[in-house]
């Protein structure tokens, strides 16, 4: 999976937790889950769990700590997928 594909998959995952339709349409690497998409912090946990299920990876606490933006989250997913494949 390349970066664009991961961002596309991520967009589908975060959609139900955000009411910021225009920010969702323009989702990109610099999108911040809390400040841009106005996602409730308790729902960030749901996003992490959804990512684990969708990509079949495990997100440790240190990785989760960084997952506030699309960029950081995409990097972590790519990293975990690679480790998985290796």
């Amino acid at each position: 999976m390349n970066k664009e594909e991961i961002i596309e998959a991520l967009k589908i995952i975060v959609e139900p937790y955000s009411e910021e339709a225009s920010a969702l349409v323009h989702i990109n690497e610099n999108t911040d889950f809390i400040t841009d998409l106005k996602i409730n912090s308790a729902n960030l946990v749901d996003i992490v769990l959804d990512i684990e299920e969708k990509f079949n990876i495990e997100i440790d606490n240190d990785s989760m700590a960084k997952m506030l933006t699309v960029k950081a989250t995409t990097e972590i997913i790519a990293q975990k997928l690679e480790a998985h494949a290796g």
Partner: protein
Amino acid sequence: MLGNDIVDLDLAKIQSNWRRKNYLDKIFTIEEQLLITSAKKTDEMVWLLWSMKESAYKIYNRKTGIRNFAPKSLNCTIYPNADQIKGAVNIDNHTYFTKSNIQLHYIHTIAAPVYSKLEEIKVAIYELPDHPSDYKRTKPGCVSHHGQYLALVY
């Protein structure tokens, strides 16, 4: 520096399913999970601990400049046998003291780095549609929004 966090319990009920597999484990320490499973009102305990963590994080974030999502690194302790719900939240080498107010429709927690300051904090809670539009002019020390509620501390 002050922190505060309000949880609209009616919204939390539909917005977050904390019974989902692995959910609690991502947020709460083993000790906190024990508090939840042994609580009479489990929903209330989940959101009480969550509001303690959030209110403490709001001070920690401003004090250290660190912005992250590490709810498990915020360790809550609830002081027993107090008629008010007081506690402490530890993160790294910082300790923040908390006082919580549990109502039927919301839980509100205030946090301060010094225990004695808790009694000096002034709290204002507004319910929709009565949110003052110009509240920023009153220069609150911390602002929390959730569902129907706006909570300000001074």
